[in-house]
Structures are given as C-alpha cells and as structure tokens.
C-alpha cells in the first residue's frame, strides 16, 4: 500500500468522494500553467501602455454615403496626380486621411510622409473588406457603417500595397490598393522592401 490504489479509467463512474488533493506533480504543473496564463494576460494591457501597435483606434459609426462623400471631398482637395485612372492624394502631414473600400477597389492612392503620424479613417461603402498593408503586414477588419480611424506612423519610405483580405464577392482577388510613403524630405523612393522579417 503506497497510496496509489485508487486509479481507474475515464470510463468508470467514480464513487464516493473523489474531491481529493492533487498529486505533487499536478500541483507543480498547475502552478506553472497558472503563472504562464497570468503572463499572457498581463502582456496585453502592458502593450496598450508601452507598446506602439494597438488595434484600438478611434471608432465611430458612419453612414456609408456620408463617408463616401467625405472621401470624394478629401480626394478633390488634395489630389496631386493619377495612377492608372486612380487619383493620387497627398494630404498635409499629420492630417486626417481617408481610405474607402468598395467592390473591388481601395480609393484613393495615398501619398504619406515617413515618420509623421496620420489619422487614417477606413470604411466600406458596401460589404466587409479586409485592410492588409503589404509588405508591412498589418491587418484590420473594415465593416460597412463603421469608421475605423487608426493613428498610423509610416516608419519607412516605399511603395506599399493594400490587399483586401476579407471575401467581398467574386472580384475579391482583384481588389488591390496603393500607398506611397515619401522619405523625410518628401522624395519618392523606389525601394520596395522585398520582405519584412521572416515570420513564423
């Protein structure tokens, strides 16, 4: 008799009192696992406080028609050129910037400046879209009727793409937008970072 007489399988209905202290190894693992869970939990508030990447943004409701009208006004005000029929818009550094997703385009082409914080308003005129900035690889869900305003600071100059990564109908894979980031002197650079750090 060494105290291990009561083992049974998971098929057997335990009788009497089974509410008994765990074995030592189970207690140890429970302690480790619990501590790890607290680390996991603490990381998120910590990143809100100290980290630079959070999905909070400024979130509000918006009438899709009103948002579309605002995008058109924004485009007309700051248009600096065209790329394949799509207006290129260069807003003043640090201003509110607008991007509209609709079946199946992102408009307009944005021209931003490296190292400046913009407030980027994104919304949809029709169905759900996915904002996926390539090759930075940051991703946000764009829901019609909601203005998702993100404070964003481009940390590198270059020529970027906006992939739609939420299914939005049969032309979904044709939906590709463009963001140009000029360097600190306002020059366009032709460098396209081939890959961000290789992720898992």
């Amino acid at each position, binding site marked *: 008799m060494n105290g291990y007489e009561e083992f049974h399988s998971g098929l057997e209905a*335990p*009788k*009497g*009192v*089974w*509410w008994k202290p765990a074995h030592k190894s189970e207690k140890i693992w429970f302690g480790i696992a619990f501590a790890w869970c607290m680390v996991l939990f603490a990381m998120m508030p910590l990143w809100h406080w100290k980290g630079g990447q959070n999905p909070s943004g400024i*979130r*509000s*409701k*918006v009438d899709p028609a*009103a*948002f579309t009208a*605002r995008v058109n006004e924004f485009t007309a005000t700051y248009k600096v050129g065209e790329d394949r029929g799509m207006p290129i818009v260069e807003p003043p550094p640090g201003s*509110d910037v*607008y991007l509209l997703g609709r079946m199946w385009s992102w408009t307009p082409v944005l021209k931003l400046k490296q190292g400046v914080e913009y407030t980027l*308003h994104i919304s949809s005129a029709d169905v759900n879209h996915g904002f996926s900035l390539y090759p930075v690889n940051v991703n946000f869900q764009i829901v019609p009727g*909601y*203005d998702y*305003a993100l404070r964003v600071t481009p940390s590198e100059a270059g020529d970027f793409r906006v992939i739609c990564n939420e299914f939005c109908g049969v032309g979904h894979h044709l939906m590709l937008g463009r963001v140009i980031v000029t360097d600190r002197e306002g020059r366009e650079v032709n460098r396209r970072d081939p890959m961000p750090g290789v992720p898992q």
Partner: protein
Amino acid sequence: MTIEPDGGEAGEAVPLGQRFFDNWPLLMVLGVVIMLVVFTGWGLWEIASMPTATLP
C-alpha cells in the same frame, strides 16, 4: 429542479466542490450567463454606445 449529488456513499459528506462539479444544470446556467453577459451583452453595448463619426 433539485439536484442530487452524484457521488457520495451513505453517511459520507460530499465536499461542496464535488457537488458543484456534479451539478451540470448549474454549470450550464453559469456558462450561458457568463457568455451572454461578458461577450454578447457587453459587446452589443459596445456597438450601441458608439458615437457617430465627425469626419474631420
């Protein structure tokens, strides 16, 4: 509905924890309530209480 504790032989006091674990209707109610309050209810409130955009 009264819940009979599952385990426990005659005369043996069944610990509260065991009686709680054996009480699946209570667990079900708690599971539903936690989900409806923390996820669904709070989530609906988050959406409903959102301001309208000013589009500066």
